[in-house]
């Protein structure tokens, strides 16, 4: 038996040719993001839309967490949730031991700092509360690091539901710290104002992806 040398290769090339003619992989619609940007009034009839995401040059974002109420574990959980939202390493974060080197500081307690320049983004889950303070001086386009996150149990830490509440609220507040400046109108999302779910929804993921693929108009200061 002696075949022309090219005959056995023909089926392979035919298969490859057929495959090449097939359509490429198609992206999902990602049609469900909620408004994540902060609209601020700048005059009687004017408003400004503020958007932010951590630049790649600042990744991983350094987070210092107060070692109480299992907060470091809750923050680790939140970081993992948000990292998993992205396909192309748009966001990354790690916990650091020195608060002086942190981009984000997570503490137990209620948000204390007040004043015109602070953008407060509260959440109120049933058994605990949280808040994120983003220091944006009036007229400035540069957020002053660190961003401060506060987590506060409303009952004794051992009471049922408090630990779970701190976990989902930590994830919610980290969402604000990474650039989602608004709340979702849907209770199925972690970024709902009164969060009740502990995992990111498809809408949360789509919103975060979109936030990290538009050019933001806010920057963040060095630490």
């Amino acid at each position, binding site marked *: *038996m002696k075949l022309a040398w090219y005959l*056995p*290769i023909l089926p392979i090339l035919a*298969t490859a040719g057929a*495959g*090449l003619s097939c*359509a490429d*992989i198609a992206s999902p619609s990602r049609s469900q993001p909620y408004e994540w940007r902060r609209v601020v009034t700048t005059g009687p009839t004017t408003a400004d839309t503020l958007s932010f995401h951590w630049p790649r040059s600042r990744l991983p974002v350094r987070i210092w967490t107060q070692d109480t109420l299992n907060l470091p574990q809750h923050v680790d959980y939140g970081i993992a949730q948000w990292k*998993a939202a992205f396909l*192309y390493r748009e966001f990354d974060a790690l916990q650091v031991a020195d608060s002086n080197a942190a981009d984000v500081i997570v503490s137990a307690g209620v948000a204390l700092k007040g004043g015109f320049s602070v953008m407060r983004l509260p959440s109120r889950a049933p058994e605990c509360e949280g808040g994120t303070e983003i220091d944006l001086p009036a007229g400035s386009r540069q957020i002053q690091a660190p961003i401060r996150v506060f987590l506060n149990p409303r009952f004794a830490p051992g009471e049922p539901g408090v630990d779970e509440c701190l976990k989902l609220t930590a994830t919610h507040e980290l969402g604000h710290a990474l650039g989602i400046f608004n709340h979702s109108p849907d209770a199925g999302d972690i970024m709902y104002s009164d969060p009740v779910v502990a995992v990111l929804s498809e809408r949360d993921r789509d919103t975060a992806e979109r936030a990290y693929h538009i050019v933001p108009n806010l920057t963040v200061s060095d630490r």
Partner: protein
Amino acid sequence: MRTMLALLSLMVAARVSVVQSQVDYYGRLGVTFSTKLLRDDLIQEIETRQNLAPTLALGVSLPIAPTYTAGLEGTITSAGYYSEEQDLKTDLGTLRTGSLILNLAGPIIPRLDWRAGAGVIHYWPADEQGIFLRGGPTRFLVGAGVDYRSSLLTSLDLMVSLRYDWHRFTTDELEARNFSGSQGVQRLSASVGLSRARP
């Protein structure tokens, strides 16, 4: 009965010896170029690609007809992969692949052989994240190529090979995120190595 068993053992041993003398084995080192793994539309177009990958190929084959051999070739590649959005490149880590192809080979002209076959390819990302959050996929693969051999030593030949293969790529994570279909990925490799000298 004992005599029969002894005779059978001798026949098997003799057959193994004949087969061993006909086995062709080789190893090569080279590089592999891959086309894009993924194209995504997220505000802008994003492509995910693998860098030019150092490649190790090992293979073995046996004659199945006067001029044809059937063989098994395994290939390992390891390289970085990245996403590119407009002019922004993001390093996504290290991606290894391993492929195993059952192939048929035969002569084109003296010293130059063709080879064609089918098998599987598996992706091993160093970190299970992003598009590989739910692990690396295993995909069906077809490929073809040519081998050039030149006598080097009495027992070894120099082997220069070109390979082309093709598969369709997707991952469990991409499917979970409602990416539809899969991406055709073509790979082209060039490698140099040693093979057992032909009689």
